[in-house]
């Protein structure tokens, strides 16, 4: 038994040596695998974050109450105070037409176009945040109705519809990413398979001789399997670097974007178990690709 592990260990080092002896080819293979694996892994991370974000937004559902143009600022403030006393409402925030315009100018990029307008087209808004306890659809619906009954309100809108749509879209996107992952996983198998095929061809005479002195197919296969496994593992590590590096690059603009919707969102990369899974998938795909290629090409080499 000790001998068995020792031999595997020796084969592992032999394979490492073989890869080391052709550094450029090995690096190229690993780079291809890294990019191939990074694509689904990266998309997965983006989706995961988006899902988390949409969840956070759902919890902080807000009602935008647009007031009629005719409502004066003082009566608008009165309405705001009155709403704040409702038992289902956590807090209210009044945004005057002027403030709304300023905010719109800042974020929309239509600043100049708006300057050209003589009159402020925006109405005053009250942002109503319901209590957590009132976050179920029926209570919100009832609350909405109460607010709409006020004849000074032009429109009251629950900002939840788009969140629902977003999460439906995310489910679809996740499916898409899985599909892509399966296809790219196949790509990894083919890439490794091709690399191993070349290695088998290069070492054809060695394989022949090993067979003639009584080497079993399992013995001959072993270094190639290790080679595939190592390359798959390193490829997965490369993908991890790409994903985490990519996240660093987009972290800044992303947090700016999310801060517009919900305040305390942080971008999370691949955590421990996810990293482990990525490495495991990379290694398994490398092993599998190698196994398929070696099995096929070993049969072509005589003697059997």
């Amino acid at each position, binding site marked *: 038994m000790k001998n*068995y592990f*020792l031999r595997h260990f020796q084969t592992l080092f032999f394979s490492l040596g073989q890869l080391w002896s052709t550094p450029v080819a090995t690096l190229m293979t690993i780079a291809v695998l890294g990019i191939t694996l990074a694509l689904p892994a990266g998309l997965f991370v983006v989706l995961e974050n988006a899902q988390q974000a949409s969840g956070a937004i759902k919890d902080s559902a807000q009602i935008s109450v647009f007031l009629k143009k005719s409502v004066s600022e003082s009566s608008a403030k009165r309405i705001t105070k009155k709403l704040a006393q409702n038992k289902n409402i956590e807090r209210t925030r009044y945004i005057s037409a002027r403030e709304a315009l300023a905010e719109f100018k800042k974020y929309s990029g239509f600043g100049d176009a708006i300057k050209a307008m003589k009159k402020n087209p925006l109405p005053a808004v009250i942002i109503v945040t319901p209590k957590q306890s009132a976050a179920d659809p029926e209570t919100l619906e009832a609350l909405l109705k109460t607010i709409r009954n006020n004849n000074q309100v032009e429109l009251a809108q629950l900002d939840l519809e788009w969140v629902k749509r977003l999460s439906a879209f995310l489910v679809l996107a996740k499916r898409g990413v899985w599909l892509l992952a399966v296809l790219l996983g196949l790509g990894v198998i083919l890439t490794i398979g091709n690399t191993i095929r070349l290695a088998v061809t290069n070492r054809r005479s060695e394989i*022949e*001789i*090993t067979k*003639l*002195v*009584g080497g*079993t197919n399992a013995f001959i296969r072993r270094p190639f399997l290790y080679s595939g496994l190592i390359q798959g593992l390193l490829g997965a590590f490369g993908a991890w670097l790409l994903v985490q590096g990519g996240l660093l690059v987009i972290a800044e603009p992303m947090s700016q974007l999310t801060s517009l919707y919900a305040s305390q969102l942080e971008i999370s990369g691949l955590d421990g178990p996810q990293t482990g899974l990525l490495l495991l998938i990379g290694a398994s795909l490398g092993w599998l690709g190698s196994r398929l290629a070696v099995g096929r090409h070993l049969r072509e080499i005589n003697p059997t």
Partner: protein
Amino acid sequence: MIQLENISKRYPGGHDALKAVTFNVKPEEMVFVTGHSGAGKSTLFKLITLIERPTRGILQVNNKNCNKLSNWRIPYFRRDIGIIFQDHKLLLDRTVFDNVALPLVVSGLNHREIQRRVRASLDKVGLLNKEKLYPLTLSGGEQQRVGIARAVVNKPPLILADEPTGNLDEKLSDEIMDLFYDFHVHGVTVMIATHDLRQLKRLQKRVIQLAEGQLVYDSENDDEYNAQ
């Protein structure tokens, strides 16, 4: 040790390499197989080492029925045969030591045992001081001796040599043949394909001659030859 009964081998395309060949090699015997190129010597060797399978006939090697041996058993079967090739078939990117060690490595022996046996085998062929060299730095005769060391490192009961002296001059050929003769004296069955008639005369061992895939002469049935 080797029993052929009406062995025929037809290659795809219809070429008959062997036609109903029958002979028997006893344990510890030394046999020369001779004949022109294309007479079927190489095919015979390929059948005995199960590189190829006979089209017809019964083949037994080392008390094993080769007709019934399944593919996965072939490696274990070959570990009991030492095979020597005219072109050595050495691994040029490995040292002499590693080349000779290969049959032991594939059998999964531990390192100390491998070292002991490889040294013993290299000592036998007189190359103990060259174990760290690479095959290309050796002369033709030395390369052939590395091949022989590799073939006998497992201590197989049967040695097959295909034209082992094909590229060597007389003196080196004599040395190589004497090595085989020595293994034979120590109880190993030795079968050598050669068309070096000088060696046949010198060693006076059994001779089997093939011509166009048929057995045309076997000194065992030649009383005159055996009387000499």
